[in-house]
């Protein structure tokens, strides 16, 4: 019953596509690891082209202390409780990967100037659940699930924190981690009673930085895990091997009836497509393989480092990044077995294809991105993780991160960097900060799941 309900989100993906355009973004900006002794903060960015402060940071909500390394975030509610009039998409849950704190941010009282509503202390999470290293935040109905990459001492495999709608700790969400060695991202498709989770590494492995040798020592992931979502336990492992080194972001198609999903294997720079077969088991295949690129100063060719991916709300396009190469790509996935490259843009990166974009010398490469519900505006940031930034793009310390916008052609395919939009986090009042994930108050292409 489209449009009749009054809960958060939208009745369907097609209704979401028709929602009003976003006017504000919330974007994480960090000082952790930069040498500037200031707290990380949530930046409010004006993205209303009619506004005088368009393309500017209009508010900065500082965390209470330093050293959180804010990274990813998620809403208290989404379209999964669209029929619950007592719920609203009001609170943004913002975890600190290093501090373990989770900040519950009220974005509704004053959307331009969000404020802290509640802090779930990292020490309390460790004591009650033996978890550290929070990453992905999802809600299901009025409950909230957050993946953690480690135990309280930073060792894998971590697990899932379960919160109620008042942000009280209920305990661990999962009944079993099975033989899962690592955790990272997850996504679920309730109509198939399935959750898929991916693997980065233990916090003690990835937090200090990336040692390539540790991949060979099996300290980084190379599997996807299929879960029985209701029973809250893993039921099938897909071993990806060399095709799936460091499988990070996992996304299903938005159509709640579909079982097709995708994962970006960062180090292999491959897209893995997975789906449910007629007999109920899950299959996978590699559908995109980004070649490593030669570099005059490198003894081996540079891998793309595909650190993120997302699917447009109409399920027509898959977007990927190559953080070290410096490009963003758009593929038409109408046939998910046979993606067709339809767009590509360059910003920063180590290959030197686009060192300056919209007048800014870009430190880093395209890394996190968020897409508008109508699929036309993609906001891209350049920092990955403080220690990894410091290894591959040391100049980001003085230049800071950048946010750019890509105009995406949803009819014919194609991507173009918008010339009128750029947010230079190198010019922030307290010094250069690094921008990471973004969320839109009305929802975006990575926030909503339909029951």
């Amino acid at each position, binding site marked *: 019953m489209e449009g009749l309900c009054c809960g958060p989100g939208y009745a369907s993906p097609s209704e979401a596509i028709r929602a009003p355009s976003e006017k504000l973004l919330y974007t994480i900006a960090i000082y*952790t*690891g*930069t*040498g500037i*002794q200031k707290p990380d903060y949530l930046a409010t960015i004006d993205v209303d082209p009619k506004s005088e402060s368009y393309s500017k940071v209009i508010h900065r909500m500082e965390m209470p202390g*330093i*050293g*959180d*390394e804010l990274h990813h975030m998620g809403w208290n509610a989404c379209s999964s409780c669209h029929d619950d009039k007592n719920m609203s998409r009001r609170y943004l849950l913002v975890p600190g990967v*290093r*501090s*373990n704190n989770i900040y519950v941010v009220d974005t509704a009282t004053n959307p331009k100037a969000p404020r802290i509503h509640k802090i779930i202390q990292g020490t309390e999470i460790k004591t009650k659940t033996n978890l*550290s290293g929070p990453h992905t935040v999802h809600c299901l109905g009025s409950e909230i699930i957050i993946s953690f990459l480690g135990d309280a*001492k*930073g060792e894998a495999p971590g697990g899932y924190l379960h919160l109620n709608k008042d942000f009280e700790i209920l305990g661990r969400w999962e009944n079993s981690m099975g033989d899962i060695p690592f955790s990272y991202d997850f996504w679920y498709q309730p109509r198939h009673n399935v959750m898929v989770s991916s693997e980065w590494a233990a*916090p*003690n492995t990835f*937090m*200090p*930085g*990336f*040692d*390539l*040798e*540790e991949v060979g*020592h099996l*300290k980084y992931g190379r599997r996807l895990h299929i879960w029985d979502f209701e029973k809250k336990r893993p039921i099938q492992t897909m071993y990806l091997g060399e095709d799936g080194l460091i499988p990070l972001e996992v996304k299903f198609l938005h159509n709640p009836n579909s079982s097709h999903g995708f994962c970006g294997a960062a180090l292999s720079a491959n897209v893995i497509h997975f789906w449910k077969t007629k007999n109920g088991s899950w299959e996978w295949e590699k559908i995109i393989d980004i070649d490593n690129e030669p570099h005059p*100063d*490198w*003894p*081996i060719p*540079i891998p793309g480092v595909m650190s993120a991916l997302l699917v447009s709300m109409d399920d027509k396009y898959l977007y990927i990044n190559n953080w070290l190469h410096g490009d963003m790509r758009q593929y038409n996935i109408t046939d998910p077995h046979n993606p067709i490259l339809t767009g590509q843009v360059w910003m920063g990166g180590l290959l030197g294809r686009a060192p300056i974009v919209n007048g800014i010398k870009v430190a880093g490469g395209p890394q996190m991105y968020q897409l508008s519900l109508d699929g036309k505006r993609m906001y891209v940031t350049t920092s990955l993780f*403080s*220690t990894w930034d*410091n*290894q*591959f793009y*040391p100049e980001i*310390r003085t230049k800071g991160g950048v946010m750019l916008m890509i105009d995406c052609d949803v009819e014919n395919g194609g991507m173009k960097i918008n010339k009128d939009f750029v947010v230079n986090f190198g010019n922030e009042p307290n010094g250069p900060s690094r921008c990471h994930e973004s969320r839109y108050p009305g929802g975006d292409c990575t926030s909503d799941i339909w029951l």
Partner: protein
Amino acid sequence: MKKITIANRNNAIYEVRGNKPLLSELRSLGLDLPYGCQYGGCITCAAKLIKGKVDQKSQVALNNRQINNGYVILCVARAKSDCTFDIGVESHDKLYRNPFIDPLAQHELKANIATVREIKDD
């Protein structure tokens, strides 16, 4: 008491007991230091030891090359003698390296995997 000299802060001197991690001792004396996890796992608080001895056996973040270059994880390290440090990101010149251009030798890996390799080779 141990005397801690911060070379890159005009040789400022702090007196610590050595019974608590240097991060908490130095911060309680007013020195503004970076930190993150506070259990020795994330490297944010790394400082470079120029002179002296510390006990940092509970750290799990550093590989052996970083340890050989003098890096100390202040959130778990305790002073065992008078020490001189460089602190903050200015001291991180050898902490971060591009792992593709400058790979580690087997003995330079983190202690737990360097050890595993030796046992295997035997």
